Every structure is written in C-alpha cells, then in structure tokens.
C-alpha cells in the first residue's frame, strides 16, 4: 500500500537553468503562482481603467474628452463616449475582472504558490500541465483583448453573453460579429485552463500531503483551495458545453438559443426551435458556483490571517471546514435565483429562493467564527489583518443584500438595477479583492524575502475601504430608486434626474479609489527591492511555509523531509515557549 506513496513523493526535480526555463516557461509552482499574480495585476489595471471610463460617462454624459477620442476614435466620436462603446467597455470590464482577476489570483495565483508548500509537497502533481494551464490562460486573455481590435470592436452583450444578442452575429449590433466570437473562444480556452488547474490542485492535495498532514491538520487555506478547485472542476465544463453550443449557433447556423419569429434590424430571422433561457440555465449553472470559486479562497485566506494575527487557534476549525464544503455544495443548486425575472414557475422560484437563503447558514457560521476568533485575542493590527477584517466587513454587507435578492418578490423589482450591481461588487468583487490584498501583504515576505511597507499598506487600506463604501452604499439607493444597469446615462429619465448628484459623487469616489491603487503598486514594486528584510517566519506563524527559507528554494524543503505533528493553528498554547508552535514541532509541552 505504501509503494505508491513512496513513488508519488519523490517528484522533486533539478532546478532549471537559463532565463526562459526559470522565469518564462517554468514548471516551478512558485514561479507559476507569481506569474498568475502578475497576470491578475495587469488585468486589474486594465479593468479599473475601463471602469473609470464608465464612471466618466455616467457622471457627465454630454461632456467631451478629446484625449479619449484620440485613443479610441470610434468609441468617442466628437469626444463623447457612444452608448455602444459604453456597453463594450462594460463587457470587457466584467469579463476581465471576473475571469482574469478574481478567478485567477486567489485560486491559481496564491493557491499555486502556497498550497504545495503548506501540505509539505515539493511541487504540484503535474508541473508541466501547470505551466500549460498558465500559458493557456495567457492565450485566453490575449484572445479576449483581440476582440477589442477586430471590426466592430468588443462585444456589447455583457459578461453573461445572453442570447439572442450574443448568438445572432453582426446583424444584432456592433461588436457582435467577430468580437463576440473571439469573446466566446476566449472563455472556452479559459475553461480548459481552469479545469486543468483544478484537476492539478485536487490531485496534489489528495496525493502529496507530507507524512502526518492528515486532512484535519490542513490549514483552512488548503481546504478552501481544494473545495474551490472541486467546484471549478464541476462548473467550468458546463460553461464549456454552453460555449460550444453558442459557437455552433454563431458559426454553424444552429438555433440552440434562438427561438422562432425574431425580427432583427428589420430582417425576419429563419431560426426556430431553440430557447434563450437554455443559455441562462447553462451559464448560471456555471455562473453561481463561479462566485464561490472566487470567494472560497478568500474565506480560507481570511481565516488563516485572522487566526495568525489574533494569536489564537481558529474558532471551531471543524465547523469552518464543514461550512466551506456546505457553501461549495449548495452553490450548485441555487443557479435559478439569477433567473427569477426570466419567467419561472412560482414553485420553482420558491425552491431556488429557499435553497439560496440556506447559503446564509454556513456563511453566518463563518462570520461568527471569525468574530469568535478575534474575541479575547492578542490582536496584531498589521495591514494584512486590516484587509482580512475588510473582507469580513464586505462579506457581511454584501451578504445581507443577497438575502433580499434571493426572494423572488423583491428580486423582480431589484432585478437589473444598481442594487444588484452594488450587491455583487461588494460580495464578489471587493471581498475577493481585499482577500488578495491581505494575501499579498501576508505572503509577500515569503515570496520575496522582504516585507511590504506597513504604513503604505494601512494608508492604502483606509482610503480604499472608505472609498469603496462611498461608491457602493449610494449605489443601493440608486437601485432602489429604479436606476437600471447597463445604461450609458440616466439623465433622460425624469424620475432619476434628481439622483444625478449621487452618480457624480460615486464617480468622484471611484476616481479616489482608483488613484489610491497607485499606492499599492508603488508599495509592491518598492518593497521587492527595498523592503525591510524578513526572517523565514515573518509573522511568527505556524504552517509549513514558515519553516522554509524566504524565498523558498526550488524544491521548497531542500534536504528536509517535512513531517507534521500537529494542527495548523496552535497559537498561545498554555505552557509553550512561544505563543505559536510550528506544525513540524514534535516536542509536546510536558513531553510524551
């Protein structure tokens, strides 16, 4: 029985030589992790720039921006952003942020770097596949960006690509020709990359744990990455299937998502037999679990950091593991709550509604356990800790509005308004982004051997959290007043014209937040070269990544064969020498 074990453990390979093998086509999980993080950083800069353009259009609809006309001559005719270009910007903003930042960085980025080390492995189970997954993701991003430069420009159908708009081709509007086809191709490529990454993570976690690293000794980050990978493995293929059908509709003339009797741009379409609702089912069967692929790693990171900086074991470890699993599982049976307004039997709506509200139970377990971990702890208020607390804050404020939207009667009113925009930006966008900030400050010393600046981190934290709440809390009111999503301007509506000052306020807040991100960028690049040197165990933490040098050698553990003797969060153990005990420490207080 252990013959397999010994073969599966000796996957260490010699350190590669030469720049290309070492930094570009590297099979080292640590290099790949950092590559994913930089891919995400690039995507974040692009996505944020696009959102700034949207805020300009919304706040000052008629104003002219000659500089932007210079950059996008077709998008800004006469210096004013065209509504179609607004929709194209919105689509690319959503797609880039959801797929190439929020899915990529917390799971593939930090997961790649940290997960193998935390379980005591020398690399992932499939190092070459890992490299291929990364470069496939790069190709997906390049194909997506190419969609902006083809005839007609980027698609205008949003990140959900609802048919019939997305299935008809050029006739339906600008960007729906080659741009939309490239968009679907990009997402299909991304699906392949993601499910291969997920497969790699699951195999690594199951097969490559060091001796003594039983499941219940795994850090909650590992549990979260493992569960998110399982969800990704089961969700992405469904989007892939949907994408194949949508491509067939566009390229082979099928009508899977097109019903009969459509008149488009004055032309009677010959399609018949299909249903646009079918796409919604396929998309959201992926799309809802996708939210948990994004947020579960954030929960793991938050648990890990809150425990470390409270100097206390995480409260109710087993309940935390169970809650992660429950959220991952329930995520697969609630997709219908995205479709309350699409037409649905009230009974089905009711079932989806109750199931969706059920997500509140494991979510509340997590929140209360985070608070209970903080309770009575010796809290170290590092920048990383602040971001983790920011995650908890967003998880609560964004989660509460989720309870409202989960009810069909309320959702029929709120659907497609700014209330929804505010909800998902807080719960999915900001919470996940703050977990990225937290993880970055926490593991930066491990990755580069130097701390990030605490002062800059705290300044960045306070500006960002105040700023984003000034953006998104007013958005709830806009939504309640009935402001619709995906409109380039509201000033045409008498009932919304009084709220224009609120829109302008949101835009100013967005500009401040956008500018504050320069602090973060400065902090990252400055600290790489000139940050304070960090010891191996930079935060006096307990898990395996703190046993090895910073930055770790190619095979992580060198000559050491890691053996695990205890759980992941042994802080402030009575009678112990220090207020933390590493997982590799054999000596128990009082001896055997």
């Amino acid at each position, binding site marked *: 029985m252990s013959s397999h074990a010994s073969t599966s453990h000796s996957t260490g390979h010699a350190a590669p030589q030469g720049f290309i093998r070492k930094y570009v086509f590297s099979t080292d999980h640590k290099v790949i992790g950092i590559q994913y993080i930089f891919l995400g950083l690039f995507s974040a800069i692009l996505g944020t720039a696009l959102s700034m353009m949207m805020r300009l259009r919304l706040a000052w609809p008629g104003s002219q921006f000659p500089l932007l006309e210079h950059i996008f001559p077709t998008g800004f005719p006469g210096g004013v952003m065209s509504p179609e270009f607004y929709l194209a910007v919105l689509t690319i903003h959503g797609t880039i942020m959801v797929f190439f930042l929020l899915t990529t960085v917390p799971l593939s980025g930090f997961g790649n770097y940290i997960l193998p080390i935390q379980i005591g492995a020398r690399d992932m189970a499939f190092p070459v596949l890992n490299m291929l997954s990364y470069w496939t993701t790069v190709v997906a991003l390049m194909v997506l960006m190419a969609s902006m430069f083809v005839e007609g420009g980027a698609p205008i159908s949003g990140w959900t690509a609802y048919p019939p708009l997305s299935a008809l081709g050029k006739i339906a509007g600008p960007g729906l020709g080659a741009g939309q086809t490239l968009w679907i191709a990009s997402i299909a490529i991304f699906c392949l990359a993601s499910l291969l990454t997920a497969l790699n993570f699951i195999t690594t976690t199951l097969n490559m744990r060091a001796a*003594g690293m039983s499941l219940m000794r795994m850090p909650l980050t590992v549990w979260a990455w493992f569960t998110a990978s399982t969800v990704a493995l089961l969700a992405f293929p469904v989007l892939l299937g949907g994408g194949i059908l949508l491509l067939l509709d566009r390229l082979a003339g099928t009508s899977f998502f097109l019903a009969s009797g459509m008149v488009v741009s004055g032309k009677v379409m010959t399609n018949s037999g299909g249903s646009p609702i*079918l796409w919604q089912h396929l998309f959201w069967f992926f799309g809802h679990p996708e939210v948990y692929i994004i947020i579960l790693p954030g929960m793991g990171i938050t648990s890990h950091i809150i425990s470390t900086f409270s100097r206390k074991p995480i409260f109710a470890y087993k309940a935390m593991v169970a809650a992660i699993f429950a959220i991952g599982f329930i995520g697969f049976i609630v997709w219908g709550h995205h479709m309350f307004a699409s037409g649905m039997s009230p009974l089905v709506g009711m079932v989806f509604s109750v199931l969706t509200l059920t997500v509140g139970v494991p979510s509340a377990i997590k929140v209360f356990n985070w608070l209970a971990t903080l309770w009575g702890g010796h809290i170290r208020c590092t920048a990383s800790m602040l971001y983790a607390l920011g995650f908890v804050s967003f998880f609560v404020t964004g989660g509460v509005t989720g309870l409202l939207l989960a009810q069909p009667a309320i959702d029929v009113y709120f659907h497609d308004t700014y209330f929804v925009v505010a909800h998902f930006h807080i719960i999915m966008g900001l919470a996940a982004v703050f977990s990225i900030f937290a993880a970055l400050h926490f593991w930066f010393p491990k990755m580069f051997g130097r701390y990030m600046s605490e002062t800059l981190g705290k300044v960045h934290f306070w500006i960002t959290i105040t700023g984003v709440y000034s953006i998104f809390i007013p958005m709830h009111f806009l939504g309640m007043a009935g402001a619709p999503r995906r409109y380039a301007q509201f000033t045409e509506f008498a009932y919304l014209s009084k709220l224009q000052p609120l829109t302008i306020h949101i835009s100013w807040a967005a500009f401040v937040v956008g500018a504050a991100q320069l602090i973060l960028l400065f902090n990252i690049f400055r600290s790489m070269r000139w940050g304070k040197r960090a010891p191996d165990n930079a935060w006096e933490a307990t898990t395996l990544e703190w046993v090895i040098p910073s930055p770790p050698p190619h095979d992580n553990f060198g000559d050491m064969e890691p053996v695990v003797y205890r759980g992941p969060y042994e802080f402030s153990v009575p009678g112990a020498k220090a207020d933390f005990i590493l997982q590799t420490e054999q000596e128990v207080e009082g001896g055997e």
Partner: protein
Amino acid sequence: MMNSGLASENWNGGGSPYAVGHKKLGMWLFLVSDSLTFGSLLISCMYARTASSNWPTPFPMWPSIAFASLMTFCLLTSSLTMAFAVAASKRGDRAAAVKFILLTILGGVAFLVLHAREWLHLIDEGVRPWSNPWGSPLFGASFFGLTGLHMFHVFSGVVYLGVIALGTRNGKRSHEDVEVCGLYWHFVDLVWMFIFPLIYLMSVSPK
C-alpha cells in the same frame, strides 16, 4: 510510513489515500469534468426536444438502427480488447498488450469510418445543422453537435492509444499509462451508451 492498512490512516498524509498514482487520479478527475461537458450538451438536446412540438423521429429499425447498432458493437468490442490490453500489461506481457491496443485502435477506427458514412448519409438526406426535411431544425443541430463532440473524443482516443501502443512497445510506457489510457477509452464508450439511446433509439420511426 504510518500505514497499517486502516482506511482512516491512509488519509494521514505521506501517501495516496486511494492508493493510486497522480496520473490515474488526474484522469479520473478529468473524466468527471468531461462527463459534465457531455452532460450539459445531452441535457440541452433533451431540453430542446422536450420544448419542441415537431421533433422528428426519422430512424427506421432497418437500416438506420441496425447500422448504428453495428457502430455500437465496434465500440463495445474495442472496450473489451482494451480490457485485455490492460490485463496483458499488468501481467507484464508487453507484446500482447500492444496487440490488444492495436485491436482497440481498429475498433475505434471502424467506428469512426462507419460514423462518417452515417454523417454523409444524413447529409444526403438533407439534414443540416440549421434544417432538416422532417421537423425541428434542432434535430440536426443536436445530432451533429453531440456526435461531433463524441467523434472528436474517439479520434483523440485513437491518437492517444497510438502513442501508448508505441510507448509500450519501446518499454517507455508503464502499466499505469496503459490503464489510464484504458480509463479514457472506456469513458468514451460509456458516453456513446448515452448518445445511442437518446439520439437514435428515442427517434425510431413509429412505422
């Protein structure tokens, strides 16, 4: 190693809890994932069928169903020869393993050729992805979409089998590689066992 054979202790780290290598576990996970890709397509096609009032049932028992049964026979037989190949490679009989893999490839290629004939035959009868002479245009879309994706899998499988056969002959591929390839091949077979009833048997003409 802390391994006394108790199931729970297999999970304590330092080993593979299912006592399988990475490749085999990875292939199982890939197949789980791939089954959802096929699942989404099969469910979409059945959704379209259920939602249509004019779904055609054009296949007579003779020759269509008989022909499709012959295709099924080829594919199922190739699964049997694959099982023999895995058994041979487990015994360490590489020559026999290669022989049985080649027979498996033969079954796969026969299936592909017969299936190509089937496509040409239907195209001759006027079935297109966007229309057909009998009813809902989604019949053709479902047929070509599903069987097309499946044929792509069979084709990839034949190539995969070829690589493994070569590697086995050279001694570069281990028994695990043969077994993992077998898993994939049986899966492709299994998928056909869903497509055959849902696409063919449910569309038998009532006459």
